[in-house]
């Protein structure tokens, strides 16, 4: 007691205020928790369950906004690293191993930069144009199914919504270019208007054939129709449509070889010339979010959406194996669960550390233990992931969807590392002279085929 009273006598004035406060929190905290759990909680859940649609929308919007930023970071990092490797360079390599956090740090840098606007700019539009570009990009995420059931708003006219909202991006770019009061920006904005509006047409027309085949405008339903083996994907029934969609998608996302809106060797940085700070960051993020959306769309429409390329059930059935599920009920273990929780990490860490310690010379024990701990965690996460993959089909769907989408992001980056840029007249000529007739041809051939097959009684 004396020790405690002596130490209390030694505390500073600030401490004399803080320690009673802490005690107060200790007393009041549990009471508040109990109150929240018994009174507020049911009320909140009651409100939530009675307005499930709105809550679902808000949660989806928040999740998508939160997802779009790391997705953009990953794509920016990919762009830096992949192009560097294709250029025989090393690329970012300072922040974290292999520079993994480089784009995050660059994003923070953008946040700390001065955010100014030119004195002659139309300040209101100048301020809101990047927001518009970014939000229209993010809004298209709402109808993209990331997995079975993992869709923000399961609209039955999802495709229509997609092209409507996606076409609004150009308004933001045009406003950004016009309000900057800069000739390069103006040229960039007008170029983007001409380009995006022209490529919107083959982009939409190339999907019409697919819509005829699928018989629906709902993206979720299109995705479900491609289940099974990889030859059930629409790319094998609509190869020309897929090709046109890919090319027009590259142009829609303003990527090389169609990146005329920000052609740095012609019109410095296009519509983004006068932007700095986080406003530039918004434009920059929007570009990469667009890349991801285009890849996601290509995957969803033509490359089987979230479906695995191999029909696992069919394979298991061929080998006379039942599809297996892992059932875990920790309650079966009873008090043994506590023992498992206490002992398994320790034992597994030791077991994994022992071979490392024995096989390597001059390995200090703490380092071996650390390696063992890391290995154990990696194994645990892998095992949990496997269980989740097998148990929950949305996990499996998300994994496959992300794999395919980032494969296409890689293709976009790969093209940027290889191709020069086309000229504006070649760009427009290509859209109107080649892509549009090809898309129409695709549409008519598909329609004829459907009519003939239907009359022949084949489905």
């Amino acid at each position, binding site marked *: 007691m004396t020790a405690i009273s002596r130490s209390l006598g030694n505390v500073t004035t600030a401490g004399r205020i803080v320690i009673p406060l802490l005690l107060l929190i200790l007393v009041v905290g549990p009471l508040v928790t109990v109150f929240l759990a018994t009174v507020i909680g049911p009320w909140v859940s009651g409100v939530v369950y009675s307005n499930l649609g709105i809550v679902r929308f808000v949660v989806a919007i928040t999740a998508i906004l939160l997802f779009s930023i790391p997705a953009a970071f990953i794509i920016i990092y990919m762009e830096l690293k992949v*192009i560097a490797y*294709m*250029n*025989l*360079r090393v690329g970012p390599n300072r922040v974290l191993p292999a520079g993994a956090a480089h784009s995050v740090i660059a994003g923070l840098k953008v946040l700390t930069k001065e955010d100014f606007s030119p*004195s*002659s700019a139309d300040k209101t539009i100048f301020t809101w144009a990047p927001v518009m570009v970014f939000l229209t990009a993010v809004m298209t995420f709402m109808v993209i199914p990331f997995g079975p059931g993992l869709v923000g708003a399961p609209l039955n006219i999802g495709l229509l919504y997609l092209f409507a909202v996606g076409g609004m991006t150009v308004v933001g770019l045009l406003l950004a270019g016009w309000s900057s009061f800069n*000739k*390069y920006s103006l*040229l960039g904005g007008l*170029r983007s208007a001409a380009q995006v509006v022209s490529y919107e047409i083959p982009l939409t027309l190339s999907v019409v054939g697919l819509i005829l085949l699928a018989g629906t405008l709902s993206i979720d339903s299109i995705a479900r129709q491609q289940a099974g083996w990889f030859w059930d994907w629409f790319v094998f029934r609509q190869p020309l449509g897929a090709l046109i969609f890919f090319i027009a998608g590259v142009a829609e996302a303003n990527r*090389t*070889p169609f*990146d*005329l809106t920000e*052609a*740095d*060797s*012609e*019109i*410095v940085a296009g519509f983004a010339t006068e932007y700095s700070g986080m406003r530039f960051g918004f434009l920059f993020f929007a570009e990469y979010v667009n890349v991801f959306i285009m890849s996601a769309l290509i995957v969803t429409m033509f490359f089987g959406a979230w479906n695995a390329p191999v029909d696992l059930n069919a394979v298991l059935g061929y080998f006379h194996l039942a599809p297996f599920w892992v059932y875990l009920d920790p309650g079966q273990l009873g008090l043994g669960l506590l023992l498992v929780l206490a002992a398994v990490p320790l034992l597994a860490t030791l077991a994994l550390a022992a071979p490392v310690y024995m096989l390597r010379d001059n390995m200090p024990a703490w380092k071996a233990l650390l390696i063992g701990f890391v290995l154990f965690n990696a194994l645990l996460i892998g095992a949990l992931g496997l269980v989740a993959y097998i148990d929950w089909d949305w996990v499996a769907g998300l994994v496959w969807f992300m794999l395919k989408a980032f494969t296409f992001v890689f293709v976009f980056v790969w093209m*940027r*590392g*290889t*191709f*020069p*840029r*086309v*000229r*504006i*007249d*070649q760009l427009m000529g290509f859209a109107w002279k080649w892509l549009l007739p090809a898309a129409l041809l695709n549409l008519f051939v598909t329609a004829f085929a459907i009519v003939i097959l239907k009359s022949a009684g084949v489905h």
Partner: protein
Amino acid sequence: MTAPAQPGHPHPSLDDPRIMLDGQIGQYEQVPPYPPRTEREAEFYTLGDGEMFLNMGPQHPSTHGVLRVVLKINGERVVDLDPVLGYLHRGVEKLCENSDYHHIISQIDPLEYVSSLFMEWAPVMAFEQLMDVQVPRRAEYIRVLTGELLRIASHALFQGWMALDLGGLTPILYSFIERDEIVEMLAAVTGQRMLFNYFRIGGVNGDLNHEFMSRLGDWMSRAAVQHEANIGLLNENEIFVRRMRDIGRVDRDTALRMGVTGPNIRAAGIPFDVRRAHPYSVYPELEFNVPVRGSNGSGDSLDRYLLRLDEVRESIRIIDQCLHNMPDGPVMARLPRLLRPRPGRAWAAVESPRGLFGTYVISDGTDQPFRFRIHDPSFVNLQLVGMLMKDNLIADTMAVMASLDPVMGGIDK
């Protein structure tokens, strides 16, 4: 000259017509701010319907240094243009007239920083004529060898810049890797990587050494293959070829009339090469072809691009012959330390990667030249942009300019 502050005016800058305030948007002063001095200027600075000026350079990302081109555009189409030079003017000729003959080599070295050995070669040859110096044959072979190596490096860099101006990110890096190998090689023998300062009056600074020879042998064994691999990225690329074809056409008569030299005139169908037309050094003893393209009257940017790639192949041939025919002997003639040539004049020209690079020197008998003049190929070739850029798109201006391969250091002197 700002007006003195008057009562009612808080700051003199309010009177300064060059400072534009928030309320004055739209009240632009005329471009340029002075009344037109010539008829051409008056014509250029009068805007037609729907036209506007676009300033390319001197800080534009792709104007090859500090060239400034004022474009008068109508939409995406260039109606007229006005190149503005002089942002890199250093007065090299006057500097050379005020330094003695040995200094001139280092003064003129950074003139064209991409191919600086050729900048040394021409004045050194002119001084040797003035002083009747017999250059040892080994030194001549070394000059040809290093010069052709640098020509390859320069053309490799051209290829990368060409692609970069058309929006390709990757070829410039491959070009720099190729150039870096050659530059490291030359650094082994000259000591420097960029401004070699290697040629001397009466020879070269040092003999070939083991490091250079081993690097060269290593490089020669894979030079041709590597070259073909690197150009494969562009030569067969439909986007690249379509952007280069049929823009920036130069026919034979225009090329002759404008005094174009180097690869640009050979791509217009005229086989003019100083190494063959006015042979110097040991080039008469070496076997090589003068590649010509555009004989059918095309003479477009693609021809100029492909011709430089042909020249790289010829240069590899020349290097091979140099290595086989390299004689023994000294690399430097015996000369007094202070050079005072007799009064007289001399002209010497070499075929630099950009064309005929010549120097004209008048000696008055002292240790400094009385007059020293430089004929720079980039300057002459750049005259073509006025003709070639007109009636093209903005994107093509860059392609045309890059295909002429100017270096601003030599143009502004």
